[in-house]
């Protein structure tokens, strides 16, 4: 591990002070628990001149969760979300996703904002400066080629692996973004632009994976409660603690008598963005039978594009994602 680069630390106590600090230091990066950013600083991946510590901003630490609505501030810790009685009771998919992140000590430190905006990962990126320079760097940093897909023509395939995003996306969550002139709210799924396509639609890839403009930052997430919605999160990883997911799956569904009335599935750890599967509503309207299982598997196969960005092969992660989606859907439907 390299020596820690030089940077100044600013500790604002209010959102206004954060905005001022950002204005004074346009190159600054926001610091939550540091469980990802400080590691990247120590590996020489990023070297921001200024860090703005968000954990002291009291107005961003609140969690509100009842049957009607869910609101979580960006500086709430993952442990606080995982243990919150209202989140556990009404939004189990979010509590389960939070409880599955890294290990217990990491969750005391890590924040919701940090997990939502978690930097994309790749075996060619999350390495020491020495390792990366010996490999001629890659697109995600200062290199000119993607080692995962050498013919990618400028597209970076680093993988998004935050766990909260897919959970929240199954609840149609929105994200609140602050900027110097005010705030804006957008669907959480639109925050993630890592489509890894160069089709002129203004989308991004593993390097440009968030729809935030310069000066913007996430201040919180919100969702409405849906009566009768059942939800759960599960993931596979190499060991049951600390590791990032091989694949993580969030499922939310409604059952009306014997009918699958609604189905939403979101997947992380596979693409440069968390993927809310398109086409799940076409599977609704009947029993959860072999047709639905096959349809779900087809959607995963079509939309999940896991590449060799981790030590587990891409085709294995795609199969795991499909199996988890089916298991969760059947469990939720039958219980």
């Amino acid at each position: 591990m390299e020596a820690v680069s030089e940077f100044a630390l600013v500790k604002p106590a209010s959102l206004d002070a954060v905005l001022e600090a950002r204005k004074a230091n346009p190159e600054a990066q926001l610091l939550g628990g540091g469980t990802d950013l400080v590691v990247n600083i120590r590996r020489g991946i990023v070297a921001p001149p200024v860090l703005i510590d968000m954990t002291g901003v009291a107005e961003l630490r609140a969690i509100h969760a009842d049957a009607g609505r869910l609101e979580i501030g960006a500086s709430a810790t993952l442990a606080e979300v995982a243990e919150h009685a209202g989140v556990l009771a009404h939004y189990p998919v979010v509590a389960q996703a939070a409880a599955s992140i890294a290990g217990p000590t990491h969750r005391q430190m890590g924040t919701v904002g940090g997990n939502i905006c978690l930097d994309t990962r790749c075996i060619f990126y999350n390495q020491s400066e020495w390792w990366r320079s010996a490999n001629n760097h890659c697109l995600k940093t200062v290199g000119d080629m993607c080692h995962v897909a050498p013919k990618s023509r400028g597209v970076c395939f680093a993988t998004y692996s935050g766990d909260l995003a897919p959970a929240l996306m199954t609840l149609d969550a929105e994200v609140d973004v602050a900027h110097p002139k005010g705030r804006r709210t957008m669907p959480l799924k639109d925050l993630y632009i890592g489509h890894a396509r160069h089709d002129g639609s203004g989308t991004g890839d593993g390097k440009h994976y968030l729809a935030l403009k310069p000066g913007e930052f996430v201040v919180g997430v919100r969702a409405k409660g849906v009566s009768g919605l059942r939800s759960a999160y599960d993931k596979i990883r190499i060991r049951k603690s600390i590791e990032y997911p091989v694949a993580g799956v969030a499922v939310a569904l409604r059952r009306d008598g014997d009918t699958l009335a609604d189905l939403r599935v979101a997947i992380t750890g596979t693409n440069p963005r968390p993927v809310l599967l398109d086409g799940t509503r076409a599977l609704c309207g009947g029993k959860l039978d072999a047709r639905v299982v096959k349809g779900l598997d087809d959607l995963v196969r079509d939309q999940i594009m896991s590449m060799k960005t981790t030590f587990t092969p891409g085709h294995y992660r795609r199969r795991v994602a499909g199996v988890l989606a089916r298991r969760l859907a059947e469990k939720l439907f039958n219980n």
Partner: protein
Amino acid sequence: MASVVELTLNGRKRTDAVPGNRLLLDYLRETAGLTGTKTGCDGGECGACTVLVDDKPVLSCLTLAATVSGKRVDTVESLGKGGALSAVQRGFHEKLGSQCGYCTPGFIMASAGLLRRNPKPSESEIREALGSNICRCTGYVKIIEAVQHASALLARGEAASP
């Protein structure tokens, strides 16, 4: 650019000027001279550097020293009192929860943090609470027995604190 950190370190108030990029781990070992906290992976993957901040376990290798200003920081040096081992220290000693010993300060602090908020944890709660720590010697069984022993010592009043 230095900032002032005022903290309660192992029960004593202390004030230091630290650079913004000083890690809590380096502050404890180099500035405060408390070398019981170990440097392991330096990347948040092993838990050897675990200390308690306001009774909650944190990884000191990923925590900036300036962010703990106004808080209580406890390291492994804080546990023994006047030569008497704490419950968790006795547990690791008497149940052989330590072999090479390198991960032990981190395991002891994560365990002390658990017993401070839950003095009678179940085995699964112990396993869960130690999920951020890695030991390459013991196979963990003896470590879990050590924490169960510490919990029993506390329950029987044979140790004053975790």
